[in-house]
């Protein structure tokens, strides 16, 4: 029953945390905790009600942070087992299953299919959005989890509050009608990565249009990775997709990497 619930939660992208005693009394005991509409569904036990309560509290913190770790407790949930004499330590493996990170791609262009494909390999939930219904079709983007025919503003109004540091927004349209509202909407979220495609010339023009609509704060403009991607000399859509995803990874872990947005001169030499 624990396995079935775990498998069902993982497959439907719902958060769930699995606790397992990996040494000490009741080794192998498991407890599964699923947050559901403000309530907690609990299956199994680590062998003691108080231990369950304390470990569950820690587990929910780990789940929220998307972390997996090992914690030590006393047999009845004491949090400093090293202070206890003649008492075994219970080591609990806390394994978080968070929903996958999201990537929202604005613009249904050639690069979109390649980017969606690479993002799926990396485990993203991928949403493709374009206002042109002839281009934004599931047939063109079978790898995407969702394809929406609409403008950026309604999408980001509806889903922006769900976006966090692990998520990415990639704006691949070169059309100001579309990319200006997409950038404005993206900046209003806590999304960890905002990449905008286009040459340096396109980016300069785009900055002028952003100024016209009042987007001028350095803190905002610094969030825009434009031109999008790492400077690895990509040419094809697939190579470009790799350079974008590599930039997303590097930015998330805080590495200093040669992004195109920090350089100058032509992108393609």
């Amino acid at each position: 029953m624990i396995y079935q619930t775990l498998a069902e939660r993982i497959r439907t992208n719902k958060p769930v945390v699995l606790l397992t005693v990996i040494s000490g009394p009741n080794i192998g005991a498991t407890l599964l905790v699923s947050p559901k509409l403000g309530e907690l569904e609990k299956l199994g036990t680590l062998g003691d009600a108080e231990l369950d309560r304390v470990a569950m509290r820690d587990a929910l913190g780990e789940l929220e942070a998307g972390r997996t770790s090992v914690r030590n407790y006393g047999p009845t949930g004491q949090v400093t087992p090293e202070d206890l004499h003649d008492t075994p330590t219970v080591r609990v493996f806390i394994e978080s299953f968070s929903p996958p990170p999201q990537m929202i791609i604005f613009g249904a262009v050639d690069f979109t299919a390649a980017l969606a494909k690479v993002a799926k390999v990396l485990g993203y939930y991928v949403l493709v959005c374009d206002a042109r219904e002839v281009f934004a079709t599931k047939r063109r983007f079978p790898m995407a989890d969702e394809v929406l025919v609409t403008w950026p503003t309604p999408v980001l109004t509806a889903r922006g509050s769900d976006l966090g540091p692990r998520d990415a927004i990639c704006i691949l349209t070169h059309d100001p009608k579309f990319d200006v509202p997409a950038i404005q909407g993206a900046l209003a979220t806590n999304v960890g990565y905002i990449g905008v495609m286009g040459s340096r010339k396109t980016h300069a023009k785009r900055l002028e249009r952003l100024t016209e609509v009042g987007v001028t704060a350095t803190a905002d403009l610094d969030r825009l990775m434009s031109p999008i991607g790492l400077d690895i000399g990509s040419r094809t859509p697939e190579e470009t997709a790799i350079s974008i995803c590599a930039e997303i990874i590097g930015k998330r872990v805080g590495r200093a990497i040669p992004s195109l947005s920090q350089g100058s001169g032509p992108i393609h030499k």
Partner: protein
Amino acid sequence: MREILNDIDYWRSQNKRIAIARVVDIEGSGPRDPGAAMAVNQDGEVSGSVSGGCVEGAVVAEALEILRNNSPGQLVKFGYSDDEAFAVGLTCGGVVHLFIQPLEW
């Protein structure tokens, strides 16, 4: 875990006994993070991985042993300076701690 669910479901539908090995901790350099999982059924069939292929063979042997002995689960360590029974280790020099248990939950 996600990538091994289909195989586990299939094995369960055939009433196979299954052991599951999960990376719970790594010291130093390690190819897979905590949570990486591998399942082994009673016939020695494998799904998933817990390293870059360095220790999987030894994990299968250990998992089958756990199933055979009806053990509730065991912590197993593989590493560079490992002087325990298994003469396998990670070429990257790290130490990986695995918990292997029968999937009876």
